[in-house]
């Protein structure tokens, strides 16, 4: 391989490698802002030398491979951090919405309860006053209406979350199908010993998007990757994806993997956050409102029954509120003031219209345990609920903030490894350009020398 042609061949290898290097740089620069793109570097090596006696002659340069710079561990960490952050973010958004119902201390259910018992207090010095009695019924109606509104807002929010869950599941299915599709392409390339290159980036980016929705673990296998939720439900196996389905159970969409209900076993992604609010937080808050509404209605009805009304002859007090269902299920949503005639409030304890004796029993409901295993007074029970909702929201916000910081940090780290640095690419470009120019110079020199060699005989013939 020595000789001028040998030199030409070596110079050509230099030209070719420099071109490929410049192509790699161009691709990096072009994809500098492509999401999920990891920068590629060329791996070049000197060609195998030729041994000529004691001489070892080089044969130029070879491009061995083009490699994407990525850190698989970091990818896994980013997926996990995304799953956590998305779950907390989803919960946080919902909790922020829930807590607005409990935001005011001077209006809403808490203030309604205070105002209702105050209306009884106002009736006490003048128990036969129809105006003051009407005040009691009006306060009772306001209270019932606010219970209804709060319960129905929570229910509406729950239905909206349920819709989001169903939408997220179809997004999950679309993503897993895409991931499986890309995996098939990667396998095809790998089977012919070709580097999958940017296809892996595409796949990783899809997995990251999937992590935003659901907890997913990546298990690399010989037949491509396997994706499974943390409880082991397979989503993708190589080039095959397994669609999740939804099925209505107990009024909400449950997530099914085949026949298995995986709803409550999801631990990450926005789905986990949404389900946590839909199946835990909202039912718990609604349940508390139900207990409060049922306790108030039952206790006030019972207290009213102990006295007599303004009718002639006086009658034992009837129900102020519709009787809640046993156990109080749905009591807040259905709380209704059935008493429409203010003279039916049983203020009297001795059968006369001027007695206020039974108002003490009605007022005492404010300071007595709510009943049904609740030992707190109505207002204490409510203020405790406010504190619970507030703490829950504050905790979710803090979790969302800290998980977002972790994610940010991992993204920065990943950017420094896999991100495209334009400065570095420019420097490389200068280097490759110079190398190309040098190699081209060698070609042109060899060319001149070859011309000389070819003309050598001609000159002699002429002379």
């Amino acid at each position, binding site marked *: 391989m020595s000789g001028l042609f040998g030199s030409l061949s070596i110079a050509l290898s230099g030209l070719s490698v420099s071109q490929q290097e410049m192509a790699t740089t161009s691709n990096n*620069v072009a994809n500098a802002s492509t999401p999920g793109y990891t920068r590629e570097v060329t791996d070049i090596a000197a060609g195998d030398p030729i041994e000529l006696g004691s001489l070892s002659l080089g044969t130029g340069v070879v491009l061995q491979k083009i490699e994407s710079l990525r850190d698989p561990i970091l990818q896994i960490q980013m997926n996990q951090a995304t799953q956590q952050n998305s779950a907390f973010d989803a919960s946080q958004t919902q*909790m*922020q919405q829930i*807590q*607005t119902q*409990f*935001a005011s*201390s*001077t209006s809403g259910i*808490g*203030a309604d*309860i*205070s*105002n209702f*018992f*105050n209306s009884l*207090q*106002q009736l*006490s*010095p*003048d*128990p*036969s006053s129809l105006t003051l009695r009407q005040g009691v019924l009006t306060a009772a109606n306001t209270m019932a209406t606010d219970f209804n509104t709060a319960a129905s807002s929570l229910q509406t929010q729950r239905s909206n979350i349920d819709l989001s869950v169903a939408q997220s599941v179809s997004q999950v299915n679309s993503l897993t199908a895409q991931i499986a599709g890309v995996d098939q392409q990667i396998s095809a390339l790998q089977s012919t010993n070709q580097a999958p290159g940017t296809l892996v980036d595409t796949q990783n980016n899809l997995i990251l998007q999937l992590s935003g929705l659901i907890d997913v673990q990546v298990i690399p296998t010989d037949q491509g990757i396997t994706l499974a939720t943390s409880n082991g439900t397979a989503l993708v196996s190589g080039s095959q994806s397994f669609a999740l389905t939804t099925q209505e159970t107990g009024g909400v969409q449950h997530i099914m993997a085949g026949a298995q209900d995986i709803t409550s076993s999801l631990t990450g992604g926005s789905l986990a956050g949404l389900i946590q609010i839909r199946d835990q937080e909202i039912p718990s808050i609604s349940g508390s409102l139900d207990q409060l509404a049922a306790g108030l209605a039952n206790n006030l009805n019972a207290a009213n029954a102990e006295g007599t009304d303004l009718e002639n002859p006086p009658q034992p007090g009837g129900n102020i509120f519709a009787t809640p269902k046993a156990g109080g299920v749905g009591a807040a949503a259905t709380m209704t003031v059935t008493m429409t005639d203010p003279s039916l409030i049983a203020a*009297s304890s*001795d059968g*006369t*219209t*001027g*007695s*206020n*004796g039974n108002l*003490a029993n009605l*007022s005492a409901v404010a300071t007595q345990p709510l009943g049904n295993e609740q030992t707190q007074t109505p*207002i*204490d029970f*409510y*203020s*405790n609920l*406010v*504190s*619970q*909702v*507030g*703490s829950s*929201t*504050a905790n979710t*916000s803090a979790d969302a903030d800290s998980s*977002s910081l972790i994610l*940010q940090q991992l*993204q*920065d780290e990943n*950017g420094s490894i896999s991100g495209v640095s*334009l*400065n570095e*690419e*420019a*420097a490389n*470009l*200068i280097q490759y350009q110079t190398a190309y120019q040098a190699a081209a110079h060698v070609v042109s020199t060899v060319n001149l020398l070859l011309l000389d060699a070819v003309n050598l005989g001609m000159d002699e013939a002429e002379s």
Partner: protein
Amino acid sequence: MPDLLAALNQTQLEEQQAELQISTGKSVNVPSDNPVAAALLVENNDQATFTSGYLQSVSVVQDQLATASSTLGSITSALQQALSLGVEAGGGTLAASDLAGIANQLQGIQSQLVSLANTAYQGNYVFAGTKTSTAPFVVDAAAPDGSGVIYVGNADVNDVSIGSGYKIAVNVPGSQLFLAPGNSVFLAINNLIQAVQTNTGIGTAVNAVSAASSYLSAETVFYGNATDQTQSQTTYLNAAKLQISQQQNTLGAVDMAAAASNLTQAQTDSQAALAAIGKLSQNNLFDYLT
């Protein structure tokens, strides 16, 4: 760049939070701002509502007590007048026609007493026990106890809460005031009229009226005491109201100076982040390649 954007988002959130606090004047705008304070504010509003409510009740009760009290004052004056007339009649120097005139005057006082005992405040008879819808004293010459009136009210008493766990009785039944066995005002007056009409035992009858009048004065003390209680309770409730409102401020009102300083800080931070993003070098080596 992503770090700067995150920082910008964060400072803008802080800016919004400070603006919200300043515009609402509240440091707790949603429960998550301070869950414990949010819960305490519910309790605080409950106390504020009840304190205002008690003050309103106290004011109504005071009006009721004042009506009863001034009525009793009029009754006492009428009894004093009856006493003077009785003493005059018992002097033994008056002619029969004069005695008949005094008896007439005494009958007038008796009617006045019945009318006063049937005093109503806003449609409710104040001396009827809890049977406030009907006039409690009905004139009946054949009344079994000889008092000339029959009591159709009852002996019940209403209690009104004027504070948390603080109840006071707000009425004394008319039977206890005017028909108390041994100190019956109406019996004493009726007996005096008959004594003057028959000119017999006037002295004894006058003494009975005097005793009934003293008894009634003693009973009147109840209204004085109750009024005193409501007055001191008003003072207490007003102080409590102030304290509750201060507590509300401590719990939920924004520290304007701190909030304004936070706002300035957040604005400065936000400006700094914006400036940093704006000045972030968009140059790279490519710009210098020719």
